[in-house]
């Protein structure tokens, strides 16, 4: 256990710097969002490909399958739902059938209700409320490995033009992505499980990595104030890399100052 560099009365020891860093993220994000100025944001090919992939499905007369993960409410699922909302809007506008497999874990049912509302709202906003069909959002199972064959079965039967798999998909992602590839669908995935990410990248046409998925909602909204919030992620990544380099130098110079600072 490294001795903290400093302590602030009232704050828990070891959590002070974390607290200050989080507060700084909040302040910076709100500052950049209030600027409403279009910041430079690098392209995310996987997110840019969604519109083209849905368009391809429309032209081929095939459905789009889009899942938001199989966990409960986590940041992965929330990011997955943002992408689902965007896909639902595109599908509603282009009269493309959207299939959303739901379930996969015991926590997933609570998310399903939000997903159903989200897709229904997207169709209603596009003025096509009658096109929304809840039967296309089946609850496959509360078990991961029952969800997987059911999902694969849907891929084989419905032969989608596009499969978009976001949110928290774990080991089953590989089975689904590879089968999606086998049925000739454009496969867009998001890696959230470090151990299978490399294999998932091989199976997918496009993959979102790291913070690309949490940033998806802002990126796809194309709203300057939301896009500006992504800027904070880049700033913080530089801070993280800077801290790592400083820590490396300090450790090699025999000082534990950076360790003590982040343990404060």
């Amino acid at each position, binding site marked *: 256990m490294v001795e903290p560099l400093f302590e602030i009365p009232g*704050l*828990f020891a070891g*959590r*002070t710097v974390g*607290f200050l860093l989080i507060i700084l*993220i*909040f302040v910076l*994000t*709100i500052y950049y969002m209030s600027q409403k100025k279009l910041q430079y944001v690098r392209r995310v090919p996987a997110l840019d490909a969604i519109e083209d992939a849905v368009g391809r499905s429309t032209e081929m007369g095939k459905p789009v399958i889009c899942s938001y993960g199989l966990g409960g*409410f986590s*940041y992965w*699922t*929330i*990011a997955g*739902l*943002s992408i689902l*909302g965007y896909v*639902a809007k595109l599908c509603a506008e282009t009269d493309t059938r959207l299939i959303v497999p739901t379930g996969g874990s*015991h926590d997933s*049912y*609570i998310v399903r209700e*939000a997903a159903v*509302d*989200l897709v229904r709202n*997207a169709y209603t*906003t596009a003025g096509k409320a009658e096109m929304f069909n809840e039967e296309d959002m*089946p*609850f496959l199972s*509360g*078990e991961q*490995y*029952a969800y997987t*064959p059911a999902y694969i079965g849907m891929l084989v039967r419905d032969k989608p033009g596009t499969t978009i798999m976001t949110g928290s998909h774990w*080991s*089953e992602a*590989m*089975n689904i*992505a*590879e*089968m999606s590839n086998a049925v000739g669908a454009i496969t867009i995935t998001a890696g*959230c499980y*470090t151990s299978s990410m490399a294999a998932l*990248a*091989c*199976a997918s046409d496009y993959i979102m*990595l*790291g*913070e690309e*998925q*949490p*940033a998806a*909602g*802002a990126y796809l*909204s194309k*709203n300057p104030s*939301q896009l500006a*919030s992504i800027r*904070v*992620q880049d700033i*913080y990544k530089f801070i993280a890399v800077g801290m790592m380099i400083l820590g490396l130098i300090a450790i090699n110079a025999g000082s534990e100052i950076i360790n003590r600072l982040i343990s404060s």
Partner: protein
Amino acid sequence: MSAFFKSRSTQLTILVISFLLVFIPYFINIPGLDWFSTKLMTIAAVTNAFTIGIAVYSQYKRSGRFIMERRKGWIYHIYLVLLMIFMIFNGIVFGQHTGGYDWLLKAVVTPLSSVIYGILAFYMASAGARAFRARSPQAALLLIAGLIVLLYQAPLTGSVFPGIEPAATYLTNTFGMSVARMFSISVCIGAIVLGVRMLTGKEVAFLGFGEE
């Protein structure tokens, strides 16, 4: 009343209050607030448990429609409904660790899950075979690194090619680990910024709302 709870502003207000109740006690020592935080998490767990009940009800309703209208695959829905009744009855009457519930779980669900997990190896192999082609210098580098790590994982490689182990360990423990850590850091930062957008009402998809 229902419209009040379904409104965007009510849901965002509840979200901000819940966030503060969980966030503040983690960092700041305020006696009493910790109690609220624990209670809130218990409420979330109980609500989640209730949704399983809704899931069962919805599944019955959906299967019922399939069976009544004799839609494609209706026979499987009879099977599904019967199994659900069997599992619920056995789970309630005999408990989760004895009787039919336990037997079905150990003799059917677990082996079938293992099969699905097991075939992952073949999917990985086919994806790897398709992707591992040296079309560019970068791809060639990836191919070589992949081959070294793959050979290291294979049985008896250590005795046939003793030099493979240090190379594979180096690749895994330096490049692999540093990339995984950078991935974790970037995801954490992305999640916090996502949280700020949620709290400021910019990101509302998770509440079931679309764009304004």
